[in-house]
């Protein structure tokens, strides 16, 4: 992941947005900063089901910390993936399990993206991350 921002900076940035345009331009830019997954990693196994757009997730456990990589064929989903990564990457399994990502999306006023219809891809991605943490 090349996103050079921590969670506090992300929240602060979001707090300055007063219209949807700045916010979505920022989300799309966040996505563009994500290191793309190598084609070899875009496997059926890494593909997250339930997404209208395609989302892939890989992970590695290094020195007790989970390193995730995410990619998507849709710009906004990729940007929202970056938000999830900023909150969850390179942390211990326990810390990830304890994370309140719904709370974060609510705070950022992005909760609609986790709704049943639209964000179910994102929702599945969060569930997969939680699942990986629970089994690491």
């Amino acid at each position, binding site marked *: 992941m090349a996103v050079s921002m921590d969670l506090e900076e992300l929240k602060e940035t979001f707090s300055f947005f007063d219209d*949807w*345009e700045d916010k*979505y*331009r920022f989300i*799309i830019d966040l996505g563009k900063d994500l290191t793309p997954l190598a084609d070899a990693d875009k496997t059926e196994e890494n593909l997250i089901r339930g997404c*209208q*757009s*395609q989302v892939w997730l890989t992970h590695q456990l290094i020195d007790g910390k989970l390193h995730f990589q995410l990619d*998507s*064929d*849709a*710009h*906004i*989903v990729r940007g929202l993936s970056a938000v999830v990564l900023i909150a969850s990457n390179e942390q211990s399994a326990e810390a990830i399990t304890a994370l309140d990502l719904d709370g974060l999306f609510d705070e950022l006023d992005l909760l609609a993206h986790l709704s049943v219809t*639209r964000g179910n891809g994102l929702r599945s991605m969060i569930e997969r991350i939680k699942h990986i943490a629970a089994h690491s």
Partner: protein
Amino acid sequence: MSIRSDFPILARQSRGKSLVYLDNGATTQKPQVVIDAIDKYYQQHNSNVHRAAHELAEEATQMMESGRSLCQAFINAESRKEIIFTRGTTEAINLVANVLTQRIKPGQDILITELEHHSNIVPWQMLAERTGANIKAVAITDDGELDLNDAAAKLTKNTALFAFTHVSNGLGTINPAKALIKMAQDVGALTLVDGAQAILHLPVDVKDLGCDFYVFSGHKLYAPTGIGVLYGREALLEALPPWQGGGEMIEHVTLTSSTYQSAPYKFEAGTPNIAGAIGLGAAITYLNQQPIADLVAAEGELIRKALAALQQIEGFQLVGQPTERSAVISFLIEGSHPNDVGTLLDQQGIAVRSGHHCNMPLMTRLGIPGTVRASFSLYNNEEDVERLIAGVQKATTFL
């Protein structure tokens, strides 16, 4: 001439802007008269139908049956017995697929097309599994029209049934239904026409079409959800067995066997969606009072304008170029996913649908993940089109 003010929801806001509703292919909004009809039924007439001898039951039955007569006239069916109330298009197709089980022989063909909605694919796959029949599909051209030569080649003496959509929900293609039905009849195949997207935008005359079955959903015709129609030719309906068993559909029941009512009741087991049927009747009454031909012509003009302007936008890619187009514009923005565009339009108060539109085989055929679909109805206006064009233009600056 605008009917817009008859639809109260169109005055609301979405994302802080006045709502632009262009997801009519998914469902249409309801005029006040339909909302009032449902309200009035529950406030003054609610009762079960066809059962009791009291005044309320008589009123409810009369109201529901008048909905049936309105449907009959609306599609020019020969008899009220040919109008079966279902939950919608999907249930109507499932009903037909189930009652045909005994008629389909192993090795026969069930012909569909590459344009079909999943609800005109999956029930036939299930029927094929039960009977050992084969599913075949008429190919489309790259413009998104049915390949009539392929239809002619695939319609053979071995074809038991040809089920196709009157209008494509994904691309807006209007199929030459009458000619297709004639071709199917020439080889002795039964025909089912999925009218879900046609019923509001095209005059539908089942006698003139000559099909065996025609199906549609009320909710795409200004009526409530949960009510739809299966039209079937009377002689054919009489010869077919019932599907679900229960109350309403029987004539006499003993503990070991039953005799059934005739059509349509034979196919309407259980307490029906009475309020829905009344709402559908109210929607048809409403439509009958409008200058439909003029409204449809105006809608076509709006769509032509929208298409001309959208095609000027850099990166805009129209999906499907049928010569005969109904009220759908399907498109992509170069370098982005349809969901990106859908989200960016939603943020501007413009409701469209993005995704595969329950047309996965069609999207696979076109080699795309889905499209953004703006689908129109008779209440859309110039302002909606201007907002759509500006909205798409703005979306491209993000992507």
